[in-house]
């Protein structure tokens, strides 16, 4: 098992390098360039811009720029923001808890609900419940996340006034857990709804497939009870592809969080990204691309390790 983890870790190194290269190239191809913000400022003239270009090292060949940037990243020096000049890493890291809280709670809701609905749909295939769950999931997946977000705000915040419409805290309530939870409900529900919809489908097909396997019949021939067959025999087999899928889906979850955070004014990484984009904050954008890439790579690594822990055959590969 340790060997497997070590191999997988080594395999991710070229992946990280590749992603950083692509991210770097993409930012260079983007129109405007890092100095575009200064051209709009009337108090900065052409000579100043040229000087800034040299200070930033933007006059150097692109591969030198990449190596300098990449080695800086390795040392923890992710550069400073244009506005405010704060270290990029700090700016990103302070947003991480809010995003993790939102994504974590939405994922938890979605996994529990999605699995339950999916398993029930697979076990009671072609039942009324199965049809309802299927059409419900289709419905939830056919509308964009922001529409659900706006509807939720309209109904629960504006009309019923049960819950706050956005943000993470009321002013002066930063330490109040209840207040935090009240703010968490709507974005979690909206983000969770969309993820639940897709996960109930994944879980249904994963369990349908496993329930038809020969070893499930063997388990029945042994006289095992339904719950024993489901939990001990079906679950570990069915959950393997779901874990793999979770690893792959992380970037999509991330983009979903981006929309939800923007609509609900949630001070997480998604908002940071959107804000940085509109302000052409190149250092932040670059940092975030690498950060998300790392996050996804680590997520996939964890997924692989979890699958290997369940299935001894995977450890051989």
């Amino acid at each position, binding site marked *: 098992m340790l060997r497997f983890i070590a191999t997988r870790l080594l395999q991710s190194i070229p992946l990280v390098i590749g992603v950083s290269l692509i991210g770097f190239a993409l930012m260079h191809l983007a129109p405007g360039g890092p100095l575009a913000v200064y051209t709009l400022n009337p108090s900065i003239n052409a000579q100043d811009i040229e000087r800034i270009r040299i200070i930033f090292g933007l006059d150097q060949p692109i591969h030198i720029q990449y190596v300098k940037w990449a080695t800086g990243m390795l040392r923890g020096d992710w550069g400073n923001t244009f506005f405010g000049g704060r270290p990029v890493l700090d700016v990103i890291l302070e947003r991480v808890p809010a995003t993790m809280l939102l994504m974590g709670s939405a994922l938890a809701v979605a996994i529990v609900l999605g699995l339950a609905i999916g398993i029930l749909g697979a076990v009671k295939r*072609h039942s009324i419940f199965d049809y309802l769950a299927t059409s419900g999931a289709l419905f939830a997946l056919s509308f964009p996340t922001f529409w659900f977000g706006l509807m939720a705000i309209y109904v629960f915040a504006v009309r019923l006034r049960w819950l706050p419409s956005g943000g993470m805290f009321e002013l002066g309530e930063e330490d109040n857990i209840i207040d935090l939870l009240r703010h968490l409900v709507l974005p979690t529900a909206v983000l969770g709804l969309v993820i639940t919809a897709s996960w109930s489908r994944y879980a249904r097909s994963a369990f349908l497939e496993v329930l038809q*396997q*020969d*070893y499930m*019949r*063997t*388990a*029945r*021939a*042994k*006289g*095992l*009870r339904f719950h*024993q067959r489901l939990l*001990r*025999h079906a679950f*570990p*087999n069915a959950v*393997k592809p779901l874990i793999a899928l979770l690893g792959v889906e992380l970037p999509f979850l991330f983009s979903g969080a981006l929309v939800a955070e923007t609509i609900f004014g949630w001070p997480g990484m998604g908002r940071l990204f959107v804000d940085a984009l509109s302000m052409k904050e190149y250092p932040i954008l670059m940092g975030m691309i690498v950060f998300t890439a790392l996050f996804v790579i680590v997520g996939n690594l964890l997924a692989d390790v979890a699958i290997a822990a*369940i*299935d*001894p*055959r995977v450890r051989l590969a």
Partner: protein
Amino acid sequence: MSLLADAVARAAPAQAAGAPVLRVEGLGVRIRTGRHALRALDDVGFSLRRAETLGLVGESGSGKTLTALALMRLVETSAIEIDRGQVALDGVDLLGLPERAMEDLRGRRISMIFQEPMTALNPVISIGRQIEEPLRRHLGTGRRAARDAAVALLDQVGIRDAARIARCHPHELSGGMRQRVTIAIAIACRPDVLVADEPTTALDVTVQAQILGLLRDLQAEMGMAMLLITHDLGVVAETAHRVAVMYAGRVVETAPVGALFRRPRHPYTRGLLRSIPRIARERPAALAEIPGTVPGLLALPEGCAFAARCELATAHCVAERPALERIGPEQAVACWRHQHV
């Protein structure tokens, strides 16, 4: 003497008559396919005594496996329904039991092994734990005792280094070893009846002989009744005491092995026996075959299902279906023309 005849001569004689431990009577299974409902099993009946092996033979699609699954009550879905008959295990009708009560019997009093050892075991659960399960489930055996019992069972089914194998997962074992493991699972609670559905079909020939030998030994040792499903008459000759021949969802002949091989009473059985290749010193005659194919279940004829392929068939055969008729103490046949066979 051919290998087959040799095997027949060695086959154990039928056991002395006793109350059957398993009696199947008039078993019928219906499959709904869209608008149609077809009769996959009709009036299937046979009985099994303790320490006796009944070979259930027939071509693919004749209903052998369905019979096994039906008496284990493992077939019922929204489309497949056991709609007639009785399966009595020591006088208790299994078909009338609620599912929970049936679960208490499966793996404990009536067990089953399957055709495909490669897929019959759960890939993510260790061999040992899969053998422990029926013990823990039915006999309430404790963790450690079950672990020891699993190793002992592996030993009993002829697996060397049983303690190490118990910690392995199915993918680390060969097909023959896996079939031994499924046998260990099936016999763990010392069942009264073992249903073996083509247990050697997926295995190499040398391994086949080992597995059959193992089943025979275990049966003698534990005195359980065995329903051995196979399409291989050689396997029947070597292992079974009595035979039931199935054709198109019905039993067409039952007889002790010796009698069946010496003098088949159904034209279909005779055709089956003739189509076995023999190793003989003289130049062999062309291998006989039964002309035609098994009728589709959707278009079963009114009369005898075999009539269209039968050289002895008369107008009566086409018009009316013969019932299974007792023609000796141990022998029954469903054929209007059995005197002419």
